[in-house]
């Protein structure tokens, strides 16, 4: 594994700064035929809640121009099954970052406590899922609530706490500063933009949940802008995501100030894309004789 790409974020040693985004990569194993999981900076596993959830009914995805809408709705086996069945199977294969969501501040605290175990590299607070009423979005759009969730989670875990922000806000820096003050060790963004599609033949919303989250190339300019704004506003490291499909896309995020990036939707078109991004990033750096940290936040204004 190349030295050039090695990095460390909140004490998590990463072989590359390329992670897999929550909800798009299962528990990592599903991509084992295409990806050297150790070469990823980490896998942000599908969102875990206290109780098992079945997610939303009806159609859950639809393709949109250069993107897609999803309304999976936090389907997951629940934290207990995750700890007993899944974590032991995956924990030695990758950096496991557990994305969690709750319907109350206490839920986040309890999840943080339960997940404060060996094999969990960090927890990522999903306060930004637009697809379920109790999916945290109420926390993600309110700086005070976001801070409360963050400090509560911090109280119950010794793991690094990453807070994942919603782009559906007027001022992303306000929320970022707020969760930083509340103790967030790292900020990740963006989650999906809330969108909708209507079937003009049936006159019904395509998605079972009426609206869904927009992701993929379409959102990249919004994501780069927000990562840039947040990186200016806070001191903690930022994990950037939103529409990354190539190393060139990833480099935009690094220049904007991201210390690492996560790839989501692009895994669907090409399950090996994270490896290609890592390799192309390495070539980009090598050809300029640079290390990763020499490009982070280096956009010239």
């Amino acid at each position, binding site marked *: 594994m190349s030295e050039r790409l090695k990095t460390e974020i909140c004490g998590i040693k990463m072989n590359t700064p390329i992670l897999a985004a929550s909800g*798009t990569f299962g528990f990592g194993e599903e991509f084992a035929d295409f990806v050297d999981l150790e070469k990823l900076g980490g896998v942000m596993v599908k969102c875990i809640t206290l109780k098992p959830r079945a997610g939303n009914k009806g159609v859950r995805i639809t393709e949109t121009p250069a993107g897609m809408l999803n309304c999976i709705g936090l389907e997951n086996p629940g934290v207990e099954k995750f700890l007993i069945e899944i974590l032991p199977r995956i924990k030695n294969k990758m950096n496991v970052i557990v994305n969690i969501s709750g319907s109350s501040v206490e839920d986040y605290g309890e999840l943080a406590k339960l997940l404060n175990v060996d094999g969990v590299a960090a927890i990522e607070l999903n306060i930004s899922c637009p697809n379920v009423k109790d999916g945290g979005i109420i926390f993600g759009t309110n700086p005070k609530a976001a801070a409360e969730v963050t400090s509560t989670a911090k109280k119950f875990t010794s793991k690094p706490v990453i807070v994942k922000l919603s782009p559906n806000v007027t001022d992303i820096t306000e929320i970022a500063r707020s969760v930083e003050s509340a103790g967030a060790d790292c900020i990740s963004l963006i989650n999906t933009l809330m969108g909708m599609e209507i079937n003009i033949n049936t006159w019904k919303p395509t998605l079972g949940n009426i609206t869904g989250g927009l992701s993929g190339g379409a959102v990249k300019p919004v994501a780069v802008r927000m990562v840039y704004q947040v990186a200016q506003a806070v001191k903690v490291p930022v994990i950037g995501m939103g529409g990354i499909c190539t190393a060139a896309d990833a480099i935009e995020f690094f220049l904007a100030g991201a210390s690492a990036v996560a790839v989501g939707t692009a895994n669907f078109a090409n399950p090996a894309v994270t490896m290609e991004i890592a390799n192309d990033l390495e070539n980009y750096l090598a050809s300029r004789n640079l290390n990763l940290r020499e490009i982070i936040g280096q956009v010239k204004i």
Partner: protein
Amino acid sequence: MLKIFDTEIISNAEVSANIFKLEVAAPELSQIAKAGQFVQVKVSDEFTLRRPLGIASAKNGMVKIFYRVIGKGTEILSTKKTGEHLNILGALGNGFDTNISGRILLVGGGMGLAPLLSVAEKIEADVLMGGKNKSEVDFWIKEFRAEVDRIYITTDDGSFGSLGFVTSLLPEVLEYDNYAAIYTCGPEIMMRSVYKIAEENNLPCYVSLERRMACGLGACLSCSIDTASGRKKVCKDGPIFEARAVFS
């Protein structure tokens, strides 16, 4: 072992109105593919998602697919020419059980006949097929002829075979032979009726389901369904399920 294959298009021709037969040279895929599995086709860089299509045949280094043009993706696929390359991810899903002993009755409607053809290629089977009209079953007859003993046909407009749906003819067909099981694929409403008749006849029944898919790998949960044994992913745990587990 799942793989991404760079395949060459051998032919891609319209076999009935808006229905295309696609043949690609894919030696390794054709060897590993099991009956009833599917692939995720990368139609063009323009699209964020691949398109899931059933493997209708996999032999002699070739993989055959039948698809109906229903949207932008299949439309662009239909413009691809012989010699062009196609990026295919596969083979996905569980596939039908082809170690079963006894003769199988395949019951398919429309494009649902595609995965059933790949079963006929592997094991002893008869087929009961339904389509809108003669032109929508004609090409299937040609494909199935070499692979099955008997072909039963219904068309919605009676332009060929019996007038009506496969489910009208099914009870009669079941009297002609002692089938070991029914494998069915087609519109969900049809499969439910087929399942009911299978139950009445105490026959095991397996169905091939369709859901919108993003990853095809069991990771994104686009295609989750409820089954008798809990939540399952159509792309990975399926697309083949025991009918009883998903329809009752």
